């Protein structure tokens, strides 16, 4: 049953007031993978952007990565409680991604287990998503949902599956990435070897339940970081930060929350949304049409955009439509 235009406007109205079910249905519409889904997404994004101009001061998108069991969910739960408590108007959406089964395609979405969040509180919204066998540790539709949520909430926190390359992908979704690690688990060294240390904007060593452990871990991480001195320091050294937390003992949570508040208030902290859109459009094209698709995009769609009067498409959906048109034109010629 397709949702009609005025239904969508109504849903968006209710979702903007942070009503849970309408927002959830809107997310489902954006996640949907059917031929008419793009048009509907286009419609949704248009209504949304008419409501409030898309600018860099939209929600801060925070990507949280790290090995399963490091405490990502627990930490997010604690940070959310602090953020909600600090500012009575603050709104947060959490999007938690879990792996899908290779065998059946189904997924167990269990991050709620660790969430101790207020119930029926419009200021916080929690949604689970399956990675749908996407190797990046975020789902193919994650980007679309993030685009939606960041227009409705002050903070959008994404918890990734947390293995392998998710750090690379999550960077393309978020303004700020946190890598959550366990103390002295040897993760640090592993990440160094994998070259993943390049990715996060900040490190969180969680499970520092005791002060001594926190100190020891800080030391070890700092010396690990020194090893990659060159690789690290050339990039925004001022923003590279380390946090020592214990979600269990509620240590270091205030500092981490304050860090996020600072980023939220800093308009300069938003990553270039157009570049992210371009990345994700290319990613989708590559998945659906391979390298040929990318060539078509570069040769037939990008030039369109550059010549101002040829009806350039500034929105993601319009460019997507232009690409599909270009592809269809080529295919019909074959």
């Amino acid at each position, binding site marked *: 049953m397709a949702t009609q235009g005025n239904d969508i406007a109504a849903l968006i109205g209710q979702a903007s007031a942070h009503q*849970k079910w309408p927002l*959830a249905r809107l997310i489902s519409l954006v996640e*949907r993978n*059917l031929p008419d889904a793009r048009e509907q997404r286009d419609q949704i994004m248009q209504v949304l952007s008419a409501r409030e101009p898309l600018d860099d001061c939209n929600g801060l998108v925070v990507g949280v990565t790290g090995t399963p069991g490091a405490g990502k969910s627990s930490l997010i739960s604690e940070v959310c409680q602090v953020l909600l408590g600090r500012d009575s108007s603050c709104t947060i959406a959490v999007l938690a991604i879990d792996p899908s089964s290779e065998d059946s395609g189904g997924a167990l979405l269990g991050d709620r287990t660790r969430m101790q969040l207020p*119930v029926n509180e419009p200021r916080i919204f929690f949604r689970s998503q*399956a990675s749908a066998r996407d190797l990046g540790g975020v789902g193919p539709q994650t980007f679309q949902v993030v685009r939606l949520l960041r227009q409705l909430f002050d903070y959008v926190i994404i918890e990734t599956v947390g293995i392998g390359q998710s750090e690379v992908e999550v960077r393309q979704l978020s303004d700020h990435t946190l890598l959550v690690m366990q103390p002295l688990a040897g993760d640090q060294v592993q990440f160094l070897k994998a070259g993943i240390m390049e990715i996060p904007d900040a490190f969180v060593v969680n499970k520092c339940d005791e002060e001594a452990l926190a100190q020891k871990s800080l030391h070890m991480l700092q010396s690990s970081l020194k090893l990659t001195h060159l690789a690290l320091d050339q990039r925004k050294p001022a923003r590279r930060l380390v946090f020592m937390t214990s979600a269990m003992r509620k240590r270091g949570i205030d500092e981490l929350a304050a860090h996020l508040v600072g980023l939220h208030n800093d308009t300069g902290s938003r990553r270039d949304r157009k570049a992210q859109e371009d990345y994700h459009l290319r990613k989708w094209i590559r998945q659906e049409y391979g390298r040929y698709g990318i060539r078509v995009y570069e040769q037939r769609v990008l030039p369109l955009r550059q010549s101002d009067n040829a009806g350039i498409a500034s929105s993601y959906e319009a460019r997507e439509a232009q690409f599909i048109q270009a592809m269809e034109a080529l295919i019909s010629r074959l």
Partner: protein
Amino acid sequence: MSDKKKTHRLYDKTGDPTQDRPWIFRTYAGHTNVRASNALYRENLAKGQTGLSIALDLPTQCGYSSDDPIARPEIGKVGVPINSLDDFAVLFDQIPIEQMNTSITINGTAMWLLSLYVALAEERGVDVSKLSGTTQNDLIKEYLARGTYIFPPEDSMRLIVDMYEYSLHHIPFWNASNICSYHLQEAGATPVQELAFALVTAITILDAIKARNCFSEDEFERCVGRISFFVNAGIRFVEEVCKMRAFCEMWDEITQERYGVKDPKYRLFRYGVQVNSLGLTAEQPENNAWRIILETLGVTLSRKARCRALQLPAWNEALSLPRPWDQQWSLRIQQILAYETDLLEYPDIFDGSHVIESKVSDLKAQAYTEIHKVLEMGGGVEAVRNGYMKSALVASQSERMARLASGEQIVVGKNKWSEGLESPLVRDSDGGIFMVDAGAAQQTLDALAETRRKRDPAAVEACLARLTNDARGGVNLMEASIACAKARVTTGEWSAALRGVFGEYRPPTGVEGQRMEMVSESVGAVRQKVDNFIRRFGYRPRIVVGKPGLDGHSNGAEMIAVAARHAGFDVIYFGIRLSAVEIVQSALEENVDIIGVSLLSGSHNEIIAQLFEELDRQGARDAIPVILGGIIPEPDYPGLKAQGVKRIFTPKDFDPMLVMSEIMDIILASKVG
């Protein structure tokens, strides 16, 4: 009397032939309210039962008073409600507690119940050092299998150690805790897992006691001697005989090698038993009587490894709580075994058997490997927190489910020889089902109100303040708790004070990352339905599997969650003890296609009503179909359906893929219709 002693006979110290005394016969009992339960206990004692085994209701177990809204659906349902010392006085009315061996199945609030018992003794003028009995108080297995935990694991361990410290000095015949492998088997544990995880639990407790350094060497030995166990015995009774022998040998070795206990008397593996219930069927329930007898053999045949106390489930286990007659029938099994057979006349009948010896050493070797693995990862508390043990149990349970569905593991009357004449037992006017008197909860509430009215509020406040202070200050909490008991503090107040200091904890669910080994036609068929759905609607079907209320029976929900993922669903499952409101919220936020609720504690009517009320409030009633599974007596079906439940599943629906297939049909009907 012959001069030459015979190897097959037992002789006493003076050389006269003798025979063993039987174990303690127990019946796990309690329900409705303190008055009804007191009458039941006195009746059972009169029938020849030789110890008390007290079942408490879920609010009492989870630390809520009866007048807490969360308690309402559960008051007196699966055990007796205890709100204050006044309730205890009625519960033990005319029962000489100084002569009783009283076993209390209590965990999250174990310290509170022990404090009430001590306070009762002191108010009655009984010498507290005479008290004997057990508080179950094994929190590790609560996180893994039973679900009535409250505080984080570290704080729970502290309370346990407090109780050992207090008991050793003041009530030397009290077993401060009872390490349980029983519940692990009910949650799916194999014999090796049962051995390993129970012994890990004992090690974790003893290590914590050692770390507190509150005992002299001598006292520590005695304390080790107070560690007792509560074990399960399944239908594979030869293996169970071996498991029990392995337990005895391993405990002797561990206490000697790890703790240096010199006196062999303190290294004895002392244990009580409840035999397996997980394998008792709803189908042809009369067959359960035979299963129970066979299970009893596993823990009684070996003289060397015989249980000290035994309680048996009843033939109608999978239908409802037992009625008095059902309990009497089960008690008779024990009496016949102990008094009619020659079981108790012989020395150990397996000594020298190569087969038994080989099986025992095999079990031991595997269990030791597992124990070392857990100790290396940091011990019992760490293996709770990181979900290692829980995942292992869920994996075993799903293997069992797959074996039942495929018929690889035969269960007579369930997946084999399921046709038969109807049992006359279920043709009783009550259908073989026990119904709690719904009006009885009011008496409990009235008594609680009366207690609140009569007590001195200043004293209550002072006692609670002391409790909180002592909790913060790391002082042993027994004295403060006993003072609370005497001041008529309530169960909810005692727990809330400590919740305030320690916080609450939710353990890992163990379902994540589970793979199901199940390939069958039904798997293919349901996946086909899922694929069609995805093609038609553009997304994967989503289900929330919810456990509302205080019910801790998680097996069914876990299996349904794992099976749904195996069928191809995206499954939202986030553990037990959630409110109906939380479950509805998750269903809405996740925009699921169906809400599946699992309830086994008997509170389904009230909780389903709460769920629909909340769906109504959110404007989502009828928009999201609701299904229910668990122990649901048939007379309740019409009422539940009238409320809006689309389908009710029971243990008879044991092929999870057929269940999934039906769920797909229900989803489709609701989307299209």
